[in-house]
Structures are given as C-alpha cells and as structure tokens.
C-alpha cells in the first residue's frame, strides 16, 4: 500500500529522495481524510523551508489543511499542474508530488518513518 521507495512523516507527508532532491507529497491516508481536494497552494521556486515548516495549503470541500516540509531545503521545482487539477491528489496521492526540495541537511532525514512504520501509524 505505502511504497517503500520513500519516507513518511507523522503529519502524513511523504518524501522520496532522487539523487540531490527530495520529492514531496501527501499520503493516501491524508487524501482519504481530507476528501475531495479542490485547492492546492504551493510555494514559489527558490523559497527555503525548514523541516516541519508549513510550505503550502491544501483544501478539500470541507476543510483546510497545512502542508509541512518533511525535510528542510530550497524549493527547486513546484508541480503547478496540481493548482489546475487538484483532484489528482485524490486519484494518485503517491504519484501527485507537490514540490521538489534540495535538502539542506542530511540530518533532517533522521526520524522519518519507513513505509512499514507509517502503515502501523495509520492502521
């Protein structure tokens, strides 16, 4: 269910490391809890965030939620397609990435959850 090629947070984000970048999205559990996603607000490229900092906002019909950076770093790419079709987050949460970060510190990855640990968390 939860791909093992990435790490997870207690706030229900995932991060997949591809060489020098970390690709960030939200989990299937998170999209289920939100319901139909209708709005995604993402940062500009070049913004720097710290681990745990709010990097964006996601809204479903019913609710507003904040997006927290799983690791700190500089935003190097933003999935602008999501602002046009936010429903992709419901359809393919583990494919619909939101931002790519250049991590500022390898230490930030410590404490992130494995797929197995995350599965237990949301069980």
């Amino acid at each position, binding site marked *: 269910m939860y791909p093992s090629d990435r790490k997870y947070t207690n706030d229900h984000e995932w991060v997949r490391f591809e060489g020098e970048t970390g690709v960030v999205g939200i989990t299937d559990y998170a999209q289920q809890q939100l*319901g*139909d996603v*209708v*709005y995604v*607000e993402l940062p500009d490229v070049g913004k720097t965030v710290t681990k745990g900092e709010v990097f964006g*906002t996601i*809204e*479903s*019909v*019913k609710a*507003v939620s904040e997006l927290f950076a799983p690791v700190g770093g500089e935003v190097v790419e933003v999935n602008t397609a999501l602002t046009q079709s936010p429903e992709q987050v*419901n359809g393919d949460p583990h494919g619909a990435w939101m931002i790519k970060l250049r991590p500022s510190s390898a230490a930030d990855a410590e404490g992130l959850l494995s797929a197995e640990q995350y599965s237990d968390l949301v069980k």
Partner: protein
Amino acid sequence: MTDTPSDPLKTTPLHARHLAHGARMVPFGGWDMPVEYSGITDEHMAVRTRVGLFDVSHMGQLELAGPDALAAVQHVSSNDASRLKVGQIHYSALMSPEGTFVDDLLVYRMADEHFLLVVNAGNIPADFDYIRSQVAGFADVDLVDSSARYALVALQGPAAARVLQPLTGADLSGLKYYWFTHGEVAGIRGMISRTGYTGEDGFEIFVPPADADRLWLALLEAGAGEGIVPAGLGARDTLRLEAGMRLHGNDIDRGTTPVEADLSWIVGWHKDAFLGREVVLRQREEGTARRLVGFEMVDRGIARHGYPVLVDAAPVGIVTSGTQTPYLKKAIGMAYVPTGAAEPGQTISIDVRGRPLRATVVPLPFYKRSRS
C-alpha cells in the same frame, strides 16, 4: 449546542445502514451522522443531475395542537401561518423577543388546529423549552416533542419524482412544492413532503423509525436505474449553499434578524403581534447597518466560515459560510457586510488566512434549478 463531550452521540434508525455503506461518520448536533459515502463531489453532482438519498432523521419534530394552536404558532414564528392551508408548508423563523433567530424551521399545517414544526437537530430541547415558555399564556394548546416518532429521509434531485412515484399511490404530479400528503411508500405508511435543502426538486418522507431501513433500501433499489447514491451531510451543506439557503448556527443565529439575513419574505408583516415584531418592523422602515449577501471569489482562494470581510483593508464583517462548490465549480460564500457594500457587483475583500483576496457581491441564490 448544549451537548457536553461526555454525552454519548445519538444515532438515527439508519445508523447501522450508514456503517454498512462504509460512510464516514461525524458528530453533528449531538448525533453520529454520515458526512460522506462516495465523496462530497460525487454525491453533490448526483443530486444536481440525478438523485440522492439523505438520512435527516436527526431533524426534530415539535407539534402544537388545540384550539389555540394557530395563535401560539403565530406568536413564536415570524411567517403568517394563517395563510397555510391544511397540507401546506412554509419556511419561517422561531423568533426571540429581540427579533432574532432562536432557530429556523418548516411549519406544516397538519389540520386546522394542528401544526408540525421541523427544527434543527441540535436545537430540539432548547426549542421545545423556549416554545413552551412563550406559549404558556395560551390556554388551549398542547406542545409535544414527537421527534422520536419519525424517521426522515430526503430523496432529492431531478429524478426524485420518477424514483418515488412507482413506490406510492400518492399522485406526486399533483403535489406542489411546499405541500405534503399522507400515503404509503413501499407499503410503509408515512407522510410525503415536497421539500428539501438542496435547491432541487425532491421529497422528504416521514415514516415510523422501525420502517426506516426498509424504506431506505426500497428507495435505493427503485433509484438504481436513475443512478441514485446515498448522500451525507457534506453534500447537504454544499448543495444548500449553492441554493443560497441559510444554515442556522452559521448564517443565522440569536444575533441576527430575518431582515439582516435578507429573509424579509418569511416575516408576516401584517400580523398584529409576534415575538420581536417591533424590532423587525423598525429595521424594515429604517434599514439595517449590515446585510447577508452572497459573494464569489475573484482572486484564487476559498473563503471559509469565520473569515473577516474587509473594505478598504478594515474588517467590516464576517463570512458565515464558504466553500468551493462542486457543481458551479466556484469559490462562493455568504457574509454579513455593511449595507453600503451589499449591492451585487460591489467588490469586497476576504481575509483568507492573512491574505486579502478580492470577491464580488452576487445575488442569491448562486444556483437555481430550471423548472420544467
């Protein structure tokens, strides 16, 4: 809401059925209710284009009967119940002495001297106590809380009549909007009301609680060919907002009057007396400082309940309802704004989590069905 966290949530007679459908359940007004089954957008679209089925058994029923029943209803309710024929329904306000909403309600004239009030779930005990105290001076009227005697399901959408007609001997083509009739549905004796909270054609069906599940399944089966879906409170809220219908506790409450809420049409202006009459009469003559309006976001963003309304960067009002609506696909809402900013076409700003975003005042409702 008077419930404390320690109160166990109440359940409707369809609770087990909702769990069997895999609904997401939430606490609402002291009840454990389905918020969504297949998803708010899917359910919303089904009701706009086909048909949806809601459990609204949490709604309350209060009945007034006796020779003074009409006078009692006229005293506590803003609308003019003397104009209701037996079998007819209207929307009204349960009025405070200050001219504000204790609740909003539907008034059913069951007989010349018998009225049924459908009130909001979270307000049932408070409404009952309030009405009892306010009508104590009327000699010959009985007030009964009959909420436990009724399960209530709402069949809503353009296909609603096509789904319901084969299940009942009642002639639905002769049943006008805001009228009701008694009859059997799927062999269950009940009351069929052509009302709803979605802006679509539809029916609300009152049956004994023990028969609710059988009715629910019969309606789902009868509606299968029309693409019926069970629908939850989430879609109910987005549907009513598109239709410009006020939600008590959000858009109207003990601090707002029918005139401020732009609901002057539910006030029986030529009635001699009712609670709060002087206040609303004065407001009608002198105007009010603020008014409830509809708005559409111009800038990208969604306004939500409680967000401040800004004019010239100063907070002047408050958003009472707001969402991104599935059918119109727009971010819309309702807000109280100064009367000077309440005309359609005027630009206001909404403080969306610290960012002022532009919105335009638009006429209510946002969505109006085409009547065939």
